[in-house]
Structures are given as C-alpha cells and as structure tokens.
C-alpha cells in the first residue's frame, strides 16, 4: 500500500525539483544529512585477492545525477555494484571500507539487503527483461514485494510505463513477450521495472552502451527527466554523455593496474575549473 502511494507522489511531482540546487547553497553540506544519499568511505574492491580499485571516497547527493566516468577496466562497475550489494553475488569478491546509505553501513552483517535493493534499483548495461510478457516483468517484482492487489499492480504498471514513455508503444500488447521489444524499449522496460518498486536511488551501469544512437538518446532524455525525482548514479565511459547529464562527476583512472578516483566534484568544478592535470587533459581530449 504505502509503496504505491509513495510511488505516485514521487511520479507526480512535476519535473526537476527546482528546490534542490537552492537548498544546496542555503544549507551547509555537513549539516544537511539527508542531502547525502550514499557515502563511500575509503572503499577498496578485490576479486580473489586482486585489488582492482582502492581509496575511494565520495558522496552521492540525493536527487542529483552523479556520473562515474572513466575508461573501461578502472573499476567503475565494481564500485557501483557495492551500492546495492550486488557484490554479494560475485564469487571471491571482497570489499574494504564502508558504504553508508542514509547514514547506515550497508555491509553490516544483519543489514536488510532485500530492503536495500528495493530502495536502490539497478539498470544493467545489457537490457535484461525477463523472458515473460511485458506485464509479468512488472508484476513479478511487485508481487515479490507484497503487492497482492491486481488493480493496484495494474495501476502501477501503467504509471511506470507512462513515466518511461513506453505506454503508448506497448499498451495494446502488454501480454506479448518482452524480448520482442527493441533494445531501447527493453531498456526502458527495465527502468520501468525498477521504478515500479518506488526506489529512491537508481544505479545505472552504462545503460546506453548496448543501444543504437537513437535509442541511446531516448534513454538519456529519460534519465534527465528523472533528475530531481530520484538519486541517480550513472556509470559511463562517454565524456560527452557525462557533460550532458551530470550534476556531479567522479573521474576514475587506472594507475599501476589499479583503479582510483582522480577527482570528484560538481560538474562546474570538473569540467570548467579543474586544477587537476589528468582531469584537464582528459576533458580536452588529450588522453583517454
């Protein structure tokens, strides 16, 4: 019950909440606790003893788009997978340091991981709708989280498909296989599926890189429309995409075979005022 109400409220708040950036300037960061959604403290990720990324410190602002940028292999996905503990599913993956979600350490032994994943949705690089009907793709997670009422599920289905712009395209074929949709439509269905659970955070791991340019720009516009309603953490290796959609940017780089965070800050700072040599040469297209 509360899920769908909360959900509707969120979807009905009209475009980018203009308050967010203003609040930033009024309230000093340290006291605005709920301005910070995820805090990453000195995190390192290793696979079977091989550390692939370390010394990561950053904080994700609520209802902003944070872009994790950098060439492939520098550990962006590995870091992203920590935020909803997908790392639990990867054999021999170990994490040091702490990740706080709303001030709580998510790697505590008795942390409610299913609850966490309900609040933190994830979109994968390759669209991965289940091989069922479009309706069932949204229905299954709703049922899993206790929404037994059919009308309520139908209502959420329409709302989330509307919000990713898929409703006009699929309203007549909700019972047909999701895998018959085009790649871009599949990816939007996956976003709708995540939105159906009324998450606060969306983690997106290169959500456009398996799509054609057209589909990719539709997804990008969708992400921009979601700004201000959800906290979005997006991984990309595409500098231009980062420049188009980021509020905050973390630039990752490989140093001596290990990924590390070169610089983290808001868009202005990274793209216009960076004093960091590597950042500047990357942005000016000299390396990377």
């Amino acid at each position, binding site marked *: 019950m509360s899920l769908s109400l909360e959900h509707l409220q969120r979807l009905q708040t009209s475009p980018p909440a203009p308050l967010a950036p203003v609040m930033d300037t009024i309230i000093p960061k340290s006291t605005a606790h709920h301005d910070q959604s995820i805090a990453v403290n000195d995190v390192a990720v290793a696979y079977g003893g091989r550390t692939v990324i370390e010394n990561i410190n950053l904080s994700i602002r609520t209802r902003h788009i944070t872009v994790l940028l950098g060439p492939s292999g520098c550990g962006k996905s590995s870091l992203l997978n920590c935020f*909803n503990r*997908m790392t639990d*599913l990867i*054999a*021999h993956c170990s994490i040091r340091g702490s990740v706080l979600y709303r001030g709580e350490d998510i790697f505590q032994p008795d942390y409610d*991981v*299913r*609850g*966490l*994943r*309900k609040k933190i*949705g*994830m979109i*994968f690089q*390759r669209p*991965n*709708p*289940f*091989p*069922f*009907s479009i309706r*069932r793709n949204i229905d*299954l*997670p709703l049922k*899993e*989280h206790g929404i037994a009422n059919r009308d309520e599920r139908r209502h959420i289905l329409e709302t989330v498909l509307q919000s990713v712009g898929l409703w006009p395209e699929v309203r007549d074929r909700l019972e*047909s*296989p*999701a*895998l*018959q949709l085009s790649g871009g439509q599949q990816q939007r269905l*996956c976003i709708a*599926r*995540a939105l159906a*659970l009324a998450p606060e955070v969306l983690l997106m791991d290169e959500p456009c890189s398996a799509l054609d340019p057209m589909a990719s720009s539709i997804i990008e516009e969708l992400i921009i429309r979601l700004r201000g309603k959800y906290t979005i953490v997006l991984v990309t290796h595409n500098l231009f995409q980062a420049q188009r959609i980021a509020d905050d940017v973390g630039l990752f780089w490989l140093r001596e075979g290990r990924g590390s965070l070169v610089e983290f800050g808001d868009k202005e700072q990274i793209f216009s005022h960076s004093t960091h040599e590597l950042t500047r040469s990357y942005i000016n297209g000299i390396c990377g």
Partner: protein
Amino acid sequence: MPRQYPHEVIKHMHTFRDRLIAWISAASVLLITLLFLWLVLDIFFKGFAGLHWSFLTSAPLNAGRAGGIAPVIVSTLLILGVCMLVCVPAGLATAIHLSEYTVRNPAAARLIRRSLDTLAGVPSIVFGLFGASVFCDLLGLGYSILSGGLTLACMVLPFMIRAGEESLRSVPQEYRLGASALGFSQYSVLTGILIPVAMPGLSIGLILGIGRALAETAALIFTSGYVLRMPESLLDSGRTLSVHIYDLAMNVSGGEANGYTSALVLIAILVMINTGARILTQRIVHEVHI
C-alpha cells in the same frame, strides 16, 4: 584465364560438398524415419490383433500365453510411480544445488558432476545387484515393487540430475542478477524465474528419465521379481511390461503374440505419459517466451 582456374575448382567443390552434406543428412533422416516406422508398424500389426479391452483388464493365464496383462500394467505404473516420486524432488533439488549453490566451491561441484556422469553410465545390471543387496536384503523390503522402484530411482537419478542441472545452468546469468537487484529472495529467483525458464529442458530430462525407467528389465528382475499376480501392496512382487515382454519372448514358447500386444501397450503408455508431461509443463511454462 589460367589464374582463375583453381578458384573455379574450389568454388565448384564448395557447392558439391554443400550438396553432399545436405544429401547425406536428408538420407539419414529418411533412413531413421523408415526404421522407426517399420518398428512401430511391425509391433502394431503383430500386436493389434490381440488388443481387446479384456486384454487390459484381465489376469494372464498359462504363463501369459493367454489372458490379459492387468496386473502387469498395475505393477508397471506402481514401480514407475515410486521411481518418479523419489527422482523428481531429489533430482530437482540436487540439480538446483549443483547449478546455483556451488559457485564458491567449483572443485567439489566438478567431482560430484564427474561421479554422476560415471554413475549414469553404469550398466543397469549393476544397479540391479546393488538394489537386491541393499533394498531387498539389507533394508528387508524383499522382492517388491518398492525395491524395484527405488532401484530404478538410483539408476535414473544421475541422469535426471545432470539433465536438470544443465537446463538450469543454461538460464542466462543476467536474469539472476536482474531479479536479485530487484530484491528477490533466492527462493523467488528459483521459483519465479529459473525453474519456469528452464522448464522445457527440465521436462525433456523428465521424459527421457521415464523412458529409461519403463525400458528397464535387468535391474528389475533382481529387485521387484517377476510374479504375475495382481499386487496388493508396494511390498508385493510384480513384473513390469518390459520384464513381461522379455519373459514372453525368451522363456514362454507360444508367447510371442501376447508379447507383441504387450509391447504395443507399453508404447501407448509411453506416448500417453510423455504427452501428459508435456501438457503439464507447457501449462507451467505458458508465460515464458524465450
């Protein structure tokens, strides 16, 4: 132009080879279909004359030369039932364990897999001896339908486990990740995603397993015996259709006619069970669109 000559030859060879392959495969399909048709028609023509309703419902007379096969059908279904009652849950559970819960210990999984493959290749007569000594003697079940069914289960399980495991493992990893990222419990990932998606493979494993069990004779002669009476409980001895056919063909002079009719019944039962299994699984997979 001499330079083009080899090229032309290769091109020609290609089309010739292509045609050869197409021809050979078409011919073998035809051959196999014909053989199969011959087999079925042979049994049909030799067995159909004896097929009356009373053949299915009456007891055999004169060691099976006359009368029907009612007790044999009942014993067959009971032995198959015992076997499947063990195989389906145990097989599915083990397959799930092997495919989903051994990620952190691949060496152990490999050992188990190799053992199962070896077991699946062990001749059935060995299972018969094992069943006779363990179920009949050690556990005191005697020559009985229960002993026979359990022995068949031991024989079919390795095969069904491996078939089940393979079909579960062929479900793409991204569905598991996607469902987990949506906060699915492991139980829901299994029942909501993995089993429905793997169902076509699982049902093929089941159908082939049933086929093996119904075809078995060697393992059963030692364990469920070959008594022709109508069984009154699972602890009674009973013979299956395959054993009955074997007996009529080898030990009973003048039993061929009824042997053929029994073979026809066996094929009919097999077809019915397979169709049933397919309809059942199709109903479960109804929503899956690969």
